[in-house]
């Protein structure tokens, strides 16, 4: 079930029990139109960016266990009031300005705002935020237009659509430690599942 704005605001109240409490920080109540029929919460672009860099070898291999064969990144911090230009065809990892704390019965989908989408900004991959997640959300953004696109920290580039999850009798699932409490955009390391490991070894 998708949650409406009023319910989300209720979930953010300090009176709400931690089992159900959603925390969004910083959150500016003045910026929310409570009369709106919106079912989403806008998020804003944060200050940290990670750019995938070219390297001497012409490919990178995410499955390789050798870090030297994986992608090389460059981190950038863009302060408020400054901008970052996303070039055509370029992919960049960014973060939300907000720190989100999800209870175990809520998950959300990250959707880019159409106003940005129509100008070529695509926020597409890994778009689901799992129940119990906490931290800033890493955004994978690419520019599909033919011209550069200015991105400014603080801009409302996307929104979260929240859904209630049936937790059944097991409300306290463990979080993934790798992505818990992240502040910077995380590229992550690939860990092979047992099935993948088997499949990849087949000849």
């Amino acid at each position, binding site marked *: 079930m998708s949650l409406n704005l009023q319910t989300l605001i209720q979930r953010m109240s300090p009176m709400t029990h931690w089992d159900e409490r959603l925390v969004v*920080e910083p959150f500016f109540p*003045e910026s929310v139109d409570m009369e709106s029929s919106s079912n989403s919460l806008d998020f804003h672009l944060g*200050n940290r960016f990670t750019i995938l860099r070219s390297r001497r070898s012409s490919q990178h291999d995410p499955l390789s266990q050798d870090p030297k064969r994986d992608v090389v990144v460059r981190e950038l911090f863009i302060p408020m009031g400054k901008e970052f230009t996303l070039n055509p065809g370029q992919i960049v990892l960014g973060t939300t300005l907000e720190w989100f704390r999800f209870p175990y019965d809520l998950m959300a989908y990250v959707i880019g705002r159409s106003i940005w989408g129509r100008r070529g900004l695509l926020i597409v991959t890994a778009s689901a935020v799992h129940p119990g997640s906490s*931290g800033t959300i890493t955004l994978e953004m690419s520019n599909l237009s033919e011209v550069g696109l200015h991105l400014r920290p603080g801009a409302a580039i996307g929104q979260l659509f929240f859904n209630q999850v049936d937790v059944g009798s097991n409300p306290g699932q463990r979080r993934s*430690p790798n992505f818990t409490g992240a502040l910077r955009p995380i590229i992550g390391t690939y860990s092979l599942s047992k099935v993948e490991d088997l499949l990849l070894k087949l000849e």
Partner: protein
Amino acid sequence: MPSPWQVECLLIRMDSLRNEILRVKNKDRPYTETDIVYDSLVSVIESRRNLVVRAKKLAAAKGTVIDQAVFNHRAKDLETVFQVFSYTDRVDSPRIPFEVLRSLSWVANKLFGEQCYTVVRLEPKYNYGILSCRREFEKNGWGKYWQYADEGQHDSLSIQNGQAPPNVLLLGFPSPDAGSTLVHALAAHEFGHEFAFKWNNDIKDVREAVVTAVKGSYNVDLQDYLWGIITRREGESQDDVTEKARRYIFALIDKITSGWLSEIFSDLVAARLVGPAFLAAFDRIIIGHGKAGETHPSASLRRSLVRRYLKDFLPEVISDPTWAHLFDGTSTAVGSSDELYGVIEKVFDSMIIEALKPILNRIPSPLTRLSPPEFAELLETMEDHIDHLATPSVPLTLGDHLPDTDKFWLLMFAAWHYRLSPRFEKLREICGDDPNSAKAEEVLGNLLLHALLSLELRARWQDKLSKGGANVA
């Protein structure tokens, strides 16, 4: 006299340093506050270069070479410019916690009552440091060069015509611990050095009292020490030698006392701002007893004085068992094997806290702003947030009874309290039971860093709202 070749070399070095400063200035950097320093350094180099060129022309007209003293003076200037420049390099590494910079500037502005920018650099040495760039310029006789080179480039820095640029406080964070947000509570100590400078006249009185006390025990305790360092030259009488050694020792006492006093004062300022969290962060940076030196007292003396001050100043706060192990140390205040240091330690141990108290009392402590029950409740709510991986800045925004700058230090305090309390185990478990707690501490540091950023954004948002500048629904 310097040869024309040496003069040429000096001019070339000046040019290359100027170009290097401009290269660094033109790098793509998040914050441009250090531009003030770069511009001013370039002005110094250009003025020194002009002086050398003029002296060279004058000497050539007289058929001679440039005066050695002038040459030496300019060469020394060049070295000093390079040194100051080297402090302001390495301020753009993505490893720097830029999130905290504006909050630090904001806190510094409120604490010192003047506009200043705080910039962080990564120190190759394992220590924290602070440098007031404008003061460094004044110390070197370059005060008039502390200026914007091109106002058009600094429109974001609120330039007002004819006004000197604000000061730039350069905070050094140890490079290996750049990402350890909790340890940055030591910034409170570094700000203490700025207070020490600001109230130098009052501290001078304390210094004189300490020096008098140390010199008073000189005859009693330092005779053996004195004999140990005396080297008698041929033709010198015993009295001459003794007097020479006495003068040397007294000068050394002055120097050591000044250095130690600044450190101890800054420690106690930090104790007022972040309470026992200072001791916790200090233990991270200085492992063990830390030997005394001419500029810094031993870590044992520092810990002992801070502990004693906290027991007196914040008895309710430190009665909390979470901090107990920070006060359990068996180290004694006085323990240097060097006799001179030992004598100074004794004097510091016996009188320094009482002597500094009236000066320290001018700095309001965020930890005494609330009544003990209110404070305990706030801390509990902040820690509840951390327990649930929510930023601890949220409870600070409820109600409006605390100044924003106090909240900055309260967050540091709360994060350390959480780190040392049994509740940290829960976070460690969430973070995958890492045996040395690295992941859990990283997450706690991220929560703290985001909370500091968030607090500052909220304050600026409120400011904008009050001025009617924000476009809100």
